[in-house]
């Protein structure tokens, strides 16, 4: 089906894709039912946002406490960094396709799989962020009478925020990109436009790509803003120097 595209005159460029986003189009294979339009775009985008946000939250819930704990204890460096490296090497397409053929997951299962893809970068960066905190600072806070939990919460965590956020942003890139191919596992996201070329046509594919890119950038900007807000004032001043 995609082979036909090679010979297809593509030179109309992006105009058709923008039309597809904003108004419904005739489709050859849906029996007269119209496809595209802003309503379907928003519906699919919403599913992708839900899927990505839930997966990201789950990944953070697993990876941040684990990273803080190992980082604080100074143990498990090989595991924490090794998981990060191994996670990067997993081809997302293979992961989703395998899960789809073997288990045939729906929404909850997919959230879990995407979360697993998001854990490695967050875990590694949290660990590294905590390990980088100056020993003198930690000792000083102990001297002030802080409990170990307070040391983590009030000293190590705030100082590790930039590193943790780097991990979260990396994980988000990964999760949002992989959520694009979620239709392979039966959850319809914006990727449905991309993967369903026989239904949506070339313009649909292009429209899917445009919407996916915009969505990914929205995530990126939101997190960049969040990072600025979460970084403590002292650290920001230090970085500015």
């Amino acid at each position: 089906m995609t082979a036909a595209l090679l010979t297809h005159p593509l030179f109309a460029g992006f105009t058709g894709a923008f039309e597809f986003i904003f108004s419904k189009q005739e489709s050859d294979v849906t029996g007269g039912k119209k496809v595209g339009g802003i309503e379907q775009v928003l519906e699919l985008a919403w599913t992708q946002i839900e899927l990505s946000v839930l997966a990201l939250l789950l990944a953070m819930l697993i990876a941040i406490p684990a990273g803080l704990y190992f980082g604080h204890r100074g143990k498990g460096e090989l595991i924490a960094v090794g998981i990060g490296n191994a996670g990067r090497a997993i081809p997302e397409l293979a992961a989703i396709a395998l899960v789809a053929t073997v288990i045939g997951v729906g929404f909850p299962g997919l959230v879990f799989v995407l979360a697993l893809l998001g854990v490695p970068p967050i875990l590694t960066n949290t660990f590294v962020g905590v390990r980088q905190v100056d020993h003198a600072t930690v000792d000083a806070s102990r001297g002030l009478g802080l409990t170990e939990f307070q040391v983590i919460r009030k000293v190590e965590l705030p100082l590790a925020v930039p590193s943790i956020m780097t991990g979260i942003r990396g994980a988000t890139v990964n999760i949002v990109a992989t959520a694009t191919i979620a239709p392979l596992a039966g959850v319809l996201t914006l990727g449905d436009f991309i993967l369903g070329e026989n239904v949506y046509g070339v313009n649909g594919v292009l429209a899917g790509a445009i919407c996916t890119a915009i969505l990914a950038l929205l995530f990126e900007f939101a997190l960049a803003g969040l990072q600025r807000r979460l970084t403590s004032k002292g650290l920001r001043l230090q970085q500015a120097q």
Partner: protein
Amino acid sequence: MISALSALPTAAVGEVGEGFLKHRTGETLPCQAHTSHLFCWDWATEHINRFGTPALQQFELVVISVLIGFAIAFAFALFAHRYRPLQWPLLAGTGVLFAIPSIAFFLLLLPITGRGRETAIIALSAYTLQIIYRNVMQGLGNVPESAKDAARGMGFTQRQILWKVELPLAVPEIVGGLRIATVSTMAIATLAVFAHAGGLGTQIYAGGNEVFPTAIIIAGGIAILMALGIDAVLLTVQRFATPWRRAAAEAA
């Protein structure tokens, strides 16, 4: 699209080609015809050849993309190192390219470059920019002021300091960036199938119904092994490029 993958097990039989079914029918039907089999050794040993060309294609894609990405990101980093105000815009710009899902990137290039290898290489090298740029900048930033001072004291020019002191000392971070870029690009290059650029993705997502768990596992496994292989090579390069680090480690 869901139908493409849900109709797998039956279709896998049709894929085996001539002579296969003649020899093994009914009771002796090979494991690939059974949905419950996660991995089918029979099929794997018989069909391992078909993964050769896609693996090579993917290897080529990754190496070319990372090399191009490195050349550009390295130039960016040197510029930003020389002209500080460029640092932020370059970081943000490469960050935007990094954030766009590669599959969308491939298709956005469609009206411009068409489908094929070039498209995949453009998108993949754009993806590596941020990783490499950030690491080179970090490496240059970590060079101790005292080392630069000493070089200045010896009469080094700004250019000599950059090439003979700062860059050699930044090698660990630079190679570190290359390693991350290669490993993640290798994983993402599996998606190059959507750009019609071949690669192992063709064995995972054929758009038809000839894919099943065994093929996915083999294709994914090859991608992971190639990533680890290149990673090991780069690690070796890093060790040879920084002999003083080994000397320090031995002395300690």
